[in-house]
C-alpha cells in the first residue's frame, strides 16, 4: 500500500515539476523578448497575449468540455469596461484598480453563473446552450449602447487614467498572466477533473448515470473561465487605454472560436498560438491586404473544420505520436499512463438495514400523451436476488428501467430505494441513492483509458483531484472481480475505443459496480455477446448476487439465459405486470406461453 501511494505522489509531483519547468522557460522567453523585439511588434504582442488568455478560456469551455460558446468575449468585455468605467467615473489609484478588477471579476462570474443556470440544466440540448452563449454578447453590447454617456455608447471610452508604464513592463505583465493561466490550466486538464471534462464532452448522459453532477461542473467551469476572461479584458483595457463595445461583442466571440479551431481545440497550446499568430498577422497585414487576409482566414477556418477538425495542432501531435512509437511494432495499440487498482471495502456494507427492501415500486404508471406504456406496476426487489424482467416487445421493460433511474420520467406511482423516495430527482441524484444502471448500447468514453473510466465512476464516492492525476483507483470487490474475469485488469492503460464489444460490456458493468449500488439495473447485458461471453457474464451475475447480496433487475430476451440465472421472473405485457414468480412457475404458466405466442390475452384465458 505504501509503495502504491508513494509511486502515485511521485508521478504527480513529476507532473507539477514538468509544468513548472515549462512555465519557467516560457517566462524566460517573456522576460528577454522585449530586448530583441521592436516597439510595434511588442505593442501588438501585448494585445495578442491578453487575447491568448481569452482563447485559453474558450478552449477549456469548448475544446475540453464541448460547450460551443460564442460569448466568452462578453466576459472579456465586462472586465474591460469595469476598468474603463471605474477609472473614468470614480477614481484612479492602486485601491481603485484592485476594486475595479474585483468588480469586473465578480460581475463576470455572476453573469456566467446565471447563464450556466439557464443553459446547462439536465436535458438541455447543446444547440440551446450555444444559443444562450450567443445571446449573451448581443445583450451585453446593447446594454453598453443603452448606457449613453456613462458607457460611451457606440464610440466607447478612451483616454481614461491608467498606468502608463513602459511597453516592456506591460509586455511582462501580459506574458506572466498568460503563462500563469496556461500553467494552471495545463495542470487542470491533466488532472482527474480534466478527464471528467472530456467524459462530459463525449457522453454527457452516461456521466449523469454515474452520479457525476454535470450541470454543476459545467457551470463551475464557465464561471471560472468567465472570471479569467474578465481579468484578461481588464488588462487589455488598462494597456490600450480604449474600450469599445466590440470588445464584448459577438464578432470577437466568433473570432476566438476561429483561433481555437485553427490552433487545435482541446490542446491549450494550439489555441494560444492560434490567437497570437492570427492577431499579430492581422495587425501586420491590416494595412496592406486587409480583405485578402480575412478571406484566407475564413477559408482556412472552413477547410480545417471539415478536413482537420482538431486543428493544426493535431498535425503536430500526430507527428509527435509517430515519433514516440517509432521503436514499437506495428499493431501495438496506444497505452496511456498506467494506474493501480486498490481494493476498498465499500461504504455501504454496514449501513444496510435488512428489513428495508433495496427497491420498492408501487403503482408505477408511465404515459406518453394518450399512450399508456406502463400501468400500475408494483414489484419489490430483495437483496441477494436476481429478478429477470421479460415480456414481448413493447411491453414496457426499458421504460420501467428508465422510470426507476430517472425521477422525471414517470407519470404516477412511487419508487423507493432503500426506503428513500426518488421523487422527481435527476438520474445523478438517484445514483446517489444507490441505483446503478447499464444500457443496451455500449457507448462509453472513446478517448478515455480503462483506468480513467473506472476513476470516473468513483467520482461520486472518492471525488477527484483538481491539479493532479490520481495514480490509484479504489474499487469494491465485485468490480475488481469483473476486471479480473474479463482480463481488463491487464489493460488499464488502453483507450476504451480499442476494446472489443464483450470487454466494453465488462467495463461498463465494472463502472456501474464501482458506484457501489444497492440495486443494479441491467438492460440486455448479453446483447451481441458470443456464447462463452454469455456464460461468463452469467457466472459473474450469479456471484454478485450470492456473494455480495446485490439486488439485480435484469431485462433479457435470451430466455435460456434467464432460466439459468434468475431467482425470480417478472413478466410484463402491454404495460401490465402479468406474473411475478419463480422460474418454474413462470415457465410452466399457460398464460405466459400464450402471450409469447402472440395471442390476445382474452382469447388465451
Amino acid at each position, binding site marked *: 500500500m505504501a509503495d502504491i501511494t508513494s509511486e502515485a505522489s511521485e508521478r504527480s509531483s513529476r507532473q507539477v515539476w514538468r509544468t513548472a519547468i515549462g512555465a519557467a522557460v516560457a517566462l524566460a522567453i517573456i522576460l528577454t523578448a522585449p530586448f530583441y523585439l521592436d516597439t510595434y511588434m511588442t505593442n501588438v504582442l501585448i494585445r495578442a497575449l491578453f487575447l491568448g488568455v481569452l482563447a485559453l478560456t474558450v478552449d477549456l469551455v469548448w475544446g475540453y468540455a464541448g460547450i460551443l460558446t460564442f460569448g466568452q468575449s462578453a466576459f472579456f468585455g465586462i472586465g474591460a469596461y469595469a476598468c474603463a468605467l471605474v477609472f473614468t467615473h470614480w477614481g484612479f489609484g492602486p485601491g481603485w484598480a484592485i476594486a475595479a478588477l474585483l468588480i469586473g471579476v465578480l460581475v463576470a462570474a455572476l453573469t456566467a453563473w446565471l447563464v450556466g443556470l439557464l443553459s446547462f440544466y439536465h436535458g438541455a440540448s447543446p444547440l440551446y446552450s450555444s444559443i444562450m452563449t450567443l445571446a449573451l454578447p*448581443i445583450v451585453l453590447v446593447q446594454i453598453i449602447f*443603452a448606457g449613453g454617456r456613462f458607457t460611451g455608447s457606440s464610440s466607447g471610452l478612451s483616454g481614461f487614467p491608467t498606468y502608463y508604464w513602459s511597453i516592456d513592463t506591460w509586455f511582462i505583465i501580459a506574458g506572466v498572466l498568460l503563462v500563469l493561466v496556461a500553467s494552471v490550466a495545463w495542470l487542470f486538464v491533466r488532472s482527474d477533473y480534466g478527464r471528467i471534462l472530456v467524459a462530459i464532452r463525449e457522453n454527457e448522459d452516461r456521466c449523469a448515470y454515474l452520479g457525476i453532477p454535470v450541470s454543476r461542473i459545467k457551470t463551475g467551469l464557465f464561471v471560472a473561465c468567465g472570471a479569467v476572461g474578465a481579468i484578461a479584458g481588464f488588462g487589455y483595457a488598462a494597456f490600450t487605454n480604449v474600450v469599445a463595445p466590440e470588445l464584448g461583442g459577438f464578432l470577437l466571440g466568433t473570432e476566438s472560436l476561429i483561433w481555437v479551431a485553427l490552433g487545435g481545440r482541446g490542446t491549450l497550446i494550439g489555441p494560444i498560438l492560434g490567437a497570437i499568430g492570427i492577431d499579430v498577422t492581422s495587425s501586420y497585414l491590416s494595412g496592406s491586404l486587409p480583405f485578402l487576409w480575412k*478571406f484566407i482566414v475564413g477559408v482556412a477556418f*472552413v477547410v480545417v473544420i471539415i478536413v482537420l477538425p482538431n486543428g493544426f495542432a493535431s498535425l503536430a501531435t500526430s507527428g509527435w505520436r509517430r515519433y514516440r512509437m517509432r521503436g514499437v511494432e506495428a499493431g501495438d495499440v496506444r497505452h496511456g499512463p498506467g494506474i493501480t487498482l486498490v481494493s476498498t471495502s465499500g461504504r455501504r456494507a454496514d449501513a444496510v438495514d435488512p428489513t428495508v427492501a433495496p427497491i420498492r415500486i408501487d403503482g408505477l404508471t408511465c404515459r406518453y400523451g394518450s399512450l399508456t406504456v406502463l400501468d400500475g406496476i408494483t414489484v419489490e426487489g430483495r437483496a441477494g436476488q436476481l429478478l429477470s424482467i421479460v415480456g414481448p416487445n413493447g411491453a414496457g421493460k426499458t421504460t420501467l428501467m428508465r422510470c426507476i433511474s430517472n425521477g422525471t420520467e414517470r407519470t404516477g406511482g412511487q419508487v423507493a430505494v432503500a426506503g428513500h423516495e426518488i421523487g422527481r430527482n435527476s438520474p445523478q441524484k438517484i445514483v446517489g441513492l444507490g441505483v446503478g444502471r447499464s444500457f443496451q448500447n455500449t457507448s462509453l468514453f472513446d478517448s478515455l483509458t480503462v483506468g480513467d473510466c473506472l476513476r470516473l465512476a468513483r467520482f461520486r464516492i472518492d471525488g477527484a483531484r483538481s491539479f493532479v492525476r490520481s495514480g490509484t483507483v479504489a474499487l469494491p470487490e465485485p468490480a475488481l472481480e469483473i476486471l479480473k474475469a474479463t482480463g481488463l485488469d491487464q489493460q488499464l492503460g488502453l483507450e476504451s475505443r480499442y476494446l472489443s464489444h464483450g470487454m466494453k460490456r465488462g467495463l461498463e458493468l465494472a463502472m456501474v459496480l464501482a458506484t457501489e449500488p444497492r440495486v443494479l439495473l441491467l438492460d440486455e447485458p448479453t446483447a451481441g455477446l458470443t456464447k462463452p461471453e454469455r456464460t461468463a457474464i452469467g457466472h459473474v451475475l450469479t456471484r454478485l448476487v450470492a456473494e455480495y447480496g446485490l439486488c439485480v433487475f435484469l431485462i433479457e430476451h435470451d430466455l435460456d439465459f434467464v432460466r439459468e440465472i434468475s431467482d425470480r421472473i417478472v413478466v410484463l405485457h402491454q404495460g401490465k405486470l402479468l406474473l411475478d414468480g419463480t422460474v418454474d412457475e413462470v415457465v410452466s404458466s399457460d398464460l405466459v406461453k400464450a402471450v409469447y405466442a402472440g395471442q390476445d390475452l382474452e382469447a388465451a384465458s
Partner: protein
Amino acid sequence: MATLFLDILTTASMLFIVAAGLMIILGVMKLINFAHGAFLTVGGYAVHVVTDAGYNAWLTIPAAAAVGFLLGVVVERLVVRPLYSRPLDAILATWGLGIVIAQVIVFIFGREVQFAASPISGTAELLATTYSAWRLILVGAAVILGVLLTALLYLTRFGLNARAVIMNEDLARGLGIDSVRVRAMTFGLGAALACAAGALITPLLSVDPNMGLPWLVNSFMLVLVSGVAIPGLALASLLLGGAQVLVSTFVSPIIGGITIVVLAAVILRIKPQGLSRG
C-alpha cells in the same frame, strides 16, 4: 395608432420573409445555417447588379433567387454534406463560409455602402395615414411566400418527400426517397429564399457587405421559437416582431434591438419545442 399597427405588421412580414429560408433548412436538415446572413447580403448585391445593368427592378427578385439556389446547392455539396454527423461543427463551418462570402463581396464591390432603387418608391395612403409603399408591398410578399411554401410542402411530391424526411429520415429512405438529394434541394431552396429576402429588404436599408448580420441572430431565434412550422413562424414573427416594435417605440430603440433575442431565450427555456403544437 394606425402607424404603430402598420409598423408591427410590416416588421413581422420582414422577419417572416427573412427567416423562412432558415427555417426550411433547419426543418429538413436539422442544421442552423450561419451563412444565412451572407446569403441575404448576396441577395442585396444581386439587386444592385441587376439595376445597375439597367434591367427592370422587378427582375431583381427572381434573379436573386436563382443565384441563391445555385450557390446553395454548391455550398451544400462542399461544406454541409461532409459535416452531416457533426451539427455543431456545421454551424461553425457555415459561419466561416459567411465570412468568406462577405470578403468576396468586398473584393468585387468594395466596402462602400450602395443604395438600391426599389421597384416602387414613395408612399401610399392606408388607414388614414401615409405609409411607405414598399413596406406595404412586403406584407403582401410575406403572405404570398407563406402560401407558396405551404403549397409546395402540402401539394407537391417534393413537399411530401421533404415532410417525410423531416419526420423520419430512415423511414423515408426505406420507401425510396433519396434523402441526400432532398436535403441538397432544400438547402438550395433555403438559400434562394434568403437571397430573395435580401433583395426584398434592400430598398429599405442600404447595401453593404455586412448588412445580413443583424438579421442572422434574430431570424435564428425566430426559427427556433417557431417550432419549425410555417404557422408557427408567422405567429413568432407577429409576437416577437410586435414586441420589438412596441419596446422600440415606448422604451428605447436600443433595448428594442434585443427584445427578440431575450424573449426567444425565455420562451425556449420554458417550452423547448417552440410555439408549434408539437
